[in-house]
């Protein structure tokens, strides 16, 4: 079984690629024949979401409606929407595929993707809600110089959004190719057009409801496959022990699927990866933006609690799905293993199709169609959340506050954000096409490293440290942004594996430990060294910021309608 050995070697080779596999890339896939139930269910989803967009468009008039759904989303709804933003199709397919190939190691990633949420809850959720208005740049420019701070925060947002978009678009194109038998270019274009419609017409309200529907569909679909597979694989006993026992008999890794393997080797890589996963979540602009859609801090807290529950449950399901797939798909006579060009046995469509093939194995063409439609819906939802965050960075931060210095008509600002959405949608389509043949796996690692190193440090320090000044924030923020990007490019994943330039200049695959340190040091040193009058005024205004942050007095309320 050379395939498995190769797969394990490849996995051990690259922690980042593994993480990326789990979250942003569906990897090598093969086109399949047209699936009619899938197309019908997908069209039903599109019709429903376009209906919602029409409904939302009637209610989206002001800037607050467009960016924050009028601030009238409840904690429970926002919790579902956050889960919808966070559970990408690629993490659904990628983590279950990782468990299918590697067993226990998949769980290590799931854990990493989840533990950022409690940190967001304890240190950021209510603070964001109390200080911000539409984007996280509102928070980091609260008591600092508007133009340079907004410029930096918007740059950080856009870099993260675009990197994330590339991974999602390429994943979407490949997935749709497999599931619906549609051409890659058509698939990417359809995704682009739909998200432009959702976001320009329906704004945050439509985007939120698309997320909520998608989250319910994905959680429901994953529950059916996970427990269906557990039922079938254990002959109705529903005993996980029985499932694990069968998996160890079938998997050629035998007992090793129940143990941590080669995925986490060097402690420095492990800690650095952990930092990126944990704090990167707290620096993703489309996630941070969701905190401005609820009316107050109480609802903001509730939304993180629900989101953590949904996301945690989802990761437990993907673990079960991976093991179910081992038992039901991996036997050579299951009908789901095919011999590839190199003459070795592999899963039909590639390892990331474990969840999709499993749905066919337990529920036939109808369940396969449902899960395919859910996977597509998932991509649409994640991409529209990202696009809205990117458009807001352009219109609210760069246009309204940097170019127009805050003197801008609200309607004009909304108009700019719609144009920005259109442009970003077209850019997403073009990037999706441009990167079709590229290995985009490293992009997710890069995205989380950049978010953890550029956006997260200035955000958390501006909330908690009274002595931060504009100079310190700019030094630290730019250092984090530039160093995390450079370290990834000079590191083994891009320098050696993608660019094939030989030994890497920067020796680690996961730079977050180093780039985050640089960023925090930059903020600290830049602020301490800053003896300007401006800096002193900024320190003095921390008091008022902190009082608002702690009590919510003076914070943006819900819209009156």
């Amino acid at each position: 079984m050379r395939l498995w050995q190769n797969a394990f070697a490849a996995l051990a080779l690259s922690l980042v690629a593994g993480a990326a596999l789990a979250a942003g890339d569906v990897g090598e896939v093969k086109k399949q024949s047209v699936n009619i139930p899938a197309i019908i269910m997908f069209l039903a989803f599109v019709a429903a979401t376009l209906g919602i967009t029409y409904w939302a468009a009637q209610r989206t008039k002001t800037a607050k409606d467009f960016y924050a759904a009028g601030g009238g989303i409840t904690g429970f709804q926002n919790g579902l929407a956050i889960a919808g933003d966070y559970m990408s199709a690629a993490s659904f397919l990628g983590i279950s595929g990782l468990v299918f190939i590697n067993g226990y190691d998949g769980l290590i990633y799931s854990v990493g993707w989840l533990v950022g949420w409690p940190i967001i809850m304890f240190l950021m959720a209510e603070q964001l809600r109390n200080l911000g208005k539409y984007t996280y740049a509102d928070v980091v420019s609260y008591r600092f110089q508007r133009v340079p701070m907004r410029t930096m925060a918007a740059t950080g947002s856009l870099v993260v959004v675009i990197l994330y978009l590339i991974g999602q678009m390429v994943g979407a194109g490949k997935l749709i190719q497999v599931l619906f038998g549609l051409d890659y270019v058509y698939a990417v274009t359809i995704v682009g057009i739909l998200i432009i419609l959702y976001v320009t017409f329906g704004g945050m309200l439509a985007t939120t409801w698309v997320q909520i529907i998608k989250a319910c569909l994905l959680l429901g679909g994953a529950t059916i496959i996970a427990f269906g597979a557990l039922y079938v694989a254990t002959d109705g006993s529903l005993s996980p022990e029985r499932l694990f026992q069968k998996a160890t008999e079938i998997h050629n890794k035998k007992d090793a699927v129940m143990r941590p393997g080669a995925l986490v080797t060097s402690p420095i890589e492990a800690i650095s990866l952990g930092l990126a996963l944990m704090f990167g979540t707290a620096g993703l602009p489309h996630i941070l933006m969701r905190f401005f859609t609820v009316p107050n801090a109480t609802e903001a807290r509730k939304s993180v609690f629900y989101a953590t529950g949904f996301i945690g449950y989802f990761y437990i399901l993907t673990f079960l799905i991976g093991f179910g797939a081992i038992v039901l798909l991996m036997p050579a006579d299951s009908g789901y293993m095919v011999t590839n060009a190199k003459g070795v046995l592999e899963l039909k469509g590639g390892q990331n199709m474990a969840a999709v093939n499993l749905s066919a194995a337990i529920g036939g063409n109808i369940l396969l169609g449902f899960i395919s439609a859910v996977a597509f819906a998932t991509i649409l939802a994640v991409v529209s959340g990202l696009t809205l965050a990117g458009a807001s960075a352009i219109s609210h931060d760069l246009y309204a506050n940097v170019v127009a210095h805050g003197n801008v008509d609200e309607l004009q600002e909304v108009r700019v954000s719609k144009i920005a959405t259109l442009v970003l949608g077209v850019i997403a389509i073009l990037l999706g096409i441009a990167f079709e043949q590229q290995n985009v796996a490293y992009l997710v690692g890069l995205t989380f490293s950049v978010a953890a190193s550029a956006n997260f440090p200035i955000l958390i320090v501006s909330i908690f440290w009274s002595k931060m000044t504009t100079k310190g924030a700019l030094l630290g923020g730019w250092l984090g942004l530039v160093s995390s990007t450079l370290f990834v490019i000079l590191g083994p994943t891009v320098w050696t594996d993608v660019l094939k330039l030989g030994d890497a200049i920067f020796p680690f695959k996961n730079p977050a430990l180093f780039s985050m340190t640089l960023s925090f040091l930059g903020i600290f040193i830049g602020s301490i060294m800053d003896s300007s009058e401006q800096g002193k005024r900024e320190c003095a205004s921390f008091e008022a910021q902190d009082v608002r942050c702690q009590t919510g007095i003076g914070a943006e309320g819900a819209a009156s309608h």
Partner: protein
Amino acid sequence: MQQDLVHAIKSNPKYHELVSKRKAFAWILAIVMLVIYYGFILIVAFNKAFLSQQLWTGSITTVGIPIGLGVIVSAFILTGIYVFRANSEFDRLTREIKEEVL
């Protein structure tokens, strides 16, 4: 926010109670989460044998399974603990401060 309102809030004893209680509670929970997660990662990195033990005699299920799932569940429980206290006690204090100063 006007400077006099800031001073009125800051001189309110309940404000200090709110800030100190919440700060301590939030950081303790954050540290608990960090210890749980990095504890798990360090065991994975340094002591794989521990996680590979049988959960009970003859079981296929390893100790690592409940521990891994336990980290996921602990994240949910910790956020629940925070919301429970924040949405009752901290929100009540905030409301009282607002009533007194506004």
